[in-house]
């Protein structure tokens, strides 16, 4: 039972980076790939219908951490305190950028929220990189050192590449527009998370919730799992091709 929930956790984390990774990367590259407001609208339009379905992977991850590994949740979040706060603030700013950028007319308004989208995405990548490095090193007392920063920058570069590949695929322009290229960049984006999970496996399995709790979770969640997967598939089938929605 604990192995099942550990695997669920690992899949959610890897899936988060494979999916939300391209939203983050595209957000970082927004000023580079989108020099004009119209070009930025196209880029945001490409990722917009996926963002809501992608970012929830992290919310689900937090839920599984709390439900199946409660002791670790307290330990990990409190040891990583400044990084988690930075991650949350970056996430909030990124989301605000997405939701607000088109809600009012003026050019200055757009510029501000496009800036928020870009800065928030960069903050997400940087803090995630530092968090993954810290977890791999067994939660050191001060996680924000040279190695942490290097991890952040490396992840930023990786996700930016993934975001670029996604944009090429969805908008069908630029090099590397094939579905295979996108699959490759998705695997690459998920790879660091998979490695970190492998390193943390023994510690996590030793700290799972008791079987009673895990059984209840399984009984409630497993029957619904096909719906979760189905909803995600539905999103991809609906928005992979064709015109770009304009709400975000």
């Amino acid at each position, binding site marked *: 039972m604990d192995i099942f929930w550990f695997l669920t956790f690992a899949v959610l984390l890897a899936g988060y980076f494979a999916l939300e990774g391209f939203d983050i990367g595209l957000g970082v590259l927004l000023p580079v790939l989108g020099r004009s407001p119209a070009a930025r609208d196209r880029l945001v339009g490409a990722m917009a219908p996926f963002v809501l379905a992608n970012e929830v992977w992290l919310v*689900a991850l937090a*839920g599984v951490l709390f439900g199946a590994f409660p*002791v670790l949740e307290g330990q*990990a*979040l*409190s040891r990583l305190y400044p990084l988690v706060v930075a991650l949350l603030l970056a996430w909030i700013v990124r989301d*605000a950028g997405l939701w607000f950028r088109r809600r009012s007319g003026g050019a200055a308004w757009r510029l501000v929220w496009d800036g928020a989208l870009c800065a928030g995405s960069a903050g997400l990548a940087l803090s995630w990189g530092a968090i993954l490095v810290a977890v791999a090193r067994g939660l050191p007392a001060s996680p924000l050192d040279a190695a942490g920063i290097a991890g952040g920058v490396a992840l930023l570069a990786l996700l930016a590449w993934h975001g670029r590949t996604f944009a090429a695929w*969805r908008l069908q322009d630029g090099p590397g527009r094939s579905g295979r290229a996108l699959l490759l960049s998705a695997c690459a984006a998920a790879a660091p998370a998979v490695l970190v999970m492998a390193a943390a496996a023994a510690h996590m399995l030793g700290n799972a919730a008791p079987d009673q709790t895990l059984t209840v979770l399984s009984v409630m969640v497993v029957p619904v799992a096909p719906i979760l997967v189905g909803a995600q598939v539905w999103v991809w089938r*609906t928005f992979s091709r064709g015109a770009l929605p304009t709400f975000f």
Partner: protein
Amino acid sequence: MDIVGLARLQFAVTGSLHFLFVVLTLGLAPLVAIMHTRYAIGGNPLHERMTRFWGQIYVINYALGVVTGLVMEFQFGLSWSGLSHYAGDVFGAPLAMETLLAFFLESTFLGLWIFGWHRLPRGLHVACIWLVTLTAYASALFIMVANSFLQNPAGSAEMGGRLVLRDFGALFTNPTLVFALPHVLSAGLWTGGFVVMGASAYHLFRRTPEREFFTRSLRIGVLTAFIGSLFTVGFGYAQFGPVGSVQPDKFHGVIPGTALGLMITIGQLVQFAVMFVLAPLLIRDLLARWRWLHPLLMVMTPLPFVAAIAGWIVREVGRQPWLVYGKLSVADALTPGLTRADITASFAGFAGVLGLLALVDYVLIARAVRRGPGQVALGAADLPVTAEPVPAHSL
């Protein structure tokens, strides 16, 4: 203020901000779903315009519900790791279910609904907003289950200094849950109804061209508020029995006592106003025609929000000094080693950013209301996938 006080204040501020948006989400979601269903069945363009206009208000409001919710989700582990250590084996389960069974689906289906105009078949598109509504309510259920466990740790037993889960079903039949959940859900309906009412009153008062649109909307708003207020008040009084039996001193403190008084005063007066004045005036659309009443309707709009925050203050401050009632005190649940600098910085960050965004969001909602159904972005035309040919070819 000491560190515990700061951490509590952070939770109270982010939690209240969260609920201000959530309570409207809960009320507007079913209304938008009903409007959309009517459009799908009858094909009346007015119903389509209603769906898109009120749907856009719903969606703008939802944005802040999400970002404030993210902070709530992670705050337990950040500030209150003692809670996950002591009670996580029980308390974690409903929270995990909320994320997996409710929020995950809610967000996915909402994405399909927002971006699915001109793309999804009509029936499936309507199904999306109903699924959004259903999962929003499921979310409320699981969160209230978790909160009720803190009020009255049912279904668990202490073993080796930690709580373990004994009876999962008991979490759902918790006496502090069974009346509180419908109280909150009806409060949501009331709030949604009042927002629709207030916005409609604004347009009718300004004599904008959308007379029919807002006359009908006003009716929907007042009827929703009528139903919501009946159940809110009914389930509100029903809560006294169970609360008194598990938390006998709950309302004795100054803060919970005052907040309770405020909530009941607002609830009682406004419910009478809705029942005896506003609802009867729907006959022959008198309410829509009596323009002098409209400013009053607008002024009343925020009242359910105030009552709802007061309600949470009663429920949460009344539980002090316990985090898990009778078992774990708030002070003992604080993350060990949390420094004043940590908590001050994160409090300033969260309260500052979320407070600012909340203000922006309310301005945007007001703006969307003012611009009216004529200029709605939700469901607007798509962009072709190929870039504008002009600059590309001129290279």
